[in-house]
């Protein structure tokens, strides 16, 4: 018998725990050239802001050891075009659509989510509290009170589940996680990128025009696992794990640490169809272990 890969988060049934992470799958259009998006548990769109943004000037990405730095600067089409064109494109796929929302202020989050409330295809929203590349992006991410308040306001206008995406660039991630839970968040996703830097020793210049950027890729996986594990013990709401996942083994590690689902990010840049193989391998792994459901792995870490 094939194992049941489905998981439930905030009343929504995901056909499997494999999602694509915001900023690494665009609005799905390019990925759809490589595989059927309906295979995915869910797709998390690129961050949407109230107005369209071009982002930072190039260079805005740099390869590092086992990772990448990016400072794209939330380049996106803005909420109006997103609803008219991009969300419409996603209509035809049978997968959970999670719209990632980024605001410069609490009010901007509320405004965007108000627009999305009327779009049933936006099954969930994920609040990007943690983009390290925009001026005020870190304020909400590192301020428990502000985070709680923002979630609470969004919950008032958005009728479906709300996920808060957490930054690792904080003193105590559990404090922010608990604040979001108190504000009414239905789930948490973590981690976003770690603030990092790369330097060109010929020109004495940072490799990004933004000077710093967000580090992602295999390099951050251990940090992400530790944070997922820590947050799992301190909140009751479900967790979606993110950070350097590129194969099924990485997925299992996150599930054992308490994540109910995961998001594949930077790996999509190298292997756009990576989720297809991961889902296949995860099934094989569960069969080998004689597990009937992927649920049976979640939080089963045997700590010392």
């Amino acid at each position, binding site marked *: 018998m094939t194992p049941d890969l489905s998981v439930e988060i905030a009343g929504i049934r995901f056909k499997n725990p494999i999602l694509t992470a915001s900023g690494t799958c665009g609005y799905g259009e390019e990925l759809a*050239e490589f595989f059927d998006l309906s295979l995915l548990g869910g797709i998390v769109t690129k961050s949407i802001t109230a107005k369209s943004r071009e982002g930072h000037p*190039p260079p805005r*990405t740099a390869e590092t050891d086992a990772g990448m730095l990016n400072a*794209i600067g939330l380049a996106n089409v803005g909420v109006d075009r997103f609803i008219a064109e991009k969300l419409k494109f996603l209509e035809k796929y049978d997968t959970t659509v999670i719209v990632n929302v980024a605001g410069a202020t609490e009010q901007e989050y509320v405004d965007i989510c108000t627009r999305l409330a009327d779009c049933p295809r936006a099954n969930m929203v994920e609040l990007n509290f943690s983009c390290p590349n925009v001026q005020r992006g870190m304020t909400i991410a590192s301020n428990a009170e502000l985070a709680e308040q923002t979630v609470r306001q969004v919950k008032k206008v958005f009728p479906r589940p709300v996920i808060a995406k957490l930054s690792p660039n904080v003193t105590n991630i559990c404090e922010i996680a608990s604040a979001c839970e108190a504000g009414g968040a239905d789930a948490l996703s973590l981690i976003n990128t770690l603030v990092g830097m790369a330097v060109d020793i010929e020109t004495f210049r940072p490799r990004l025009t933004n000077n710093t950027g967000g580090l992602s*890729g295999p390099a951050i996986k251990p940090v992400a696992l530790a944070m997922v594990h820590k947050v799992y013990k301190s909140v009751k709401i479900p967790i979606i794990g993110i950070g350097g996942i590129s194969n099924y083994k990485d997925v299992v590690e996150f599930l054992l640490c308490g994540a109910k689902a995961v998001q594949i990010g930077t790996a999509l*840049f190298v292997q756009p169809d990576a989720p297809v193989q991961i889902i296949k391998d995860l099934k094989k792994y569960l069969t080998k272990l004689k597990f009937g459901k992927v649920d049976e792995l979640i939080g089963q870490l045997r700590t010392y």
Partner: protein
Amino acid sequence: MKKIVIETAKILSKKQWAPDLNLINLGPFSKAGIIKPGQFVHIKISDTDILFRRAFSVFDTDAKNDSLSILFKVFGRGTSRLAVLPKGAKVNIMGPLGNGFSFPRRKEMAVLAGGGIGLPPLYLLAKEMIERGYDRKRILIFYGGKTRRELIELNRLRGLGPKVICSTDDGSYGLQGFVSDAIRKLISGKSENYRIYACGPNGMLKAIDEMAREFKIPGQLSLEAPMPCGTGICLGCIVPLRAGGYSRVCREGPVYEIGEVLL
């Protein structure tokens, strides 16, 4: 049928022109026969800790054997590694990616300008034009490098038939000066309908772009940019457009019309 494929191939043969200048032939790649001049492939070197693929403009294709070749200069970690891989080593190819050149009108005089390692798309363009029956005399190929050493695969290029005009910055071979200088000399005062195609270092592209606009010659440039994903998703390889905004080199490019990009 899938337009872009991801396939594992092997290094079928390799030729080292200098320690840092390499030609490698890869296969099998099922889409080799449909690669257009100017398109690129994104190559992942297996079994390394190098995270991203590396983009290479396709130099030549062999539809019969499902193989393709790339020319590259050792520049960073990826190309250093690729240069030392032996014959038979596996690589993973994603492609074909990006947009190729548009072919000229039959009555136009096609000017193909390649600077150093920028030769590949122009070689393939010339080859396909001849296969499509274009008049060899209506194709002029300019090939430039810093020194003679950089003018690799010259015999293969000459073997295509059209006239090849070489230039080197130091005068060690052909005309002395930049490719753009050689072209300017040719087109000045002529009433021919030229169409220009160029690929090479940024300085060269900028000079050709300016000259083409000055003489009102249409044409296309093939750009190079570091590309994390190559598929249009990451938004890392952008260039500013003259009309405003940014364009993804991997997706809307790498081929752009003269004057389109703010170089």
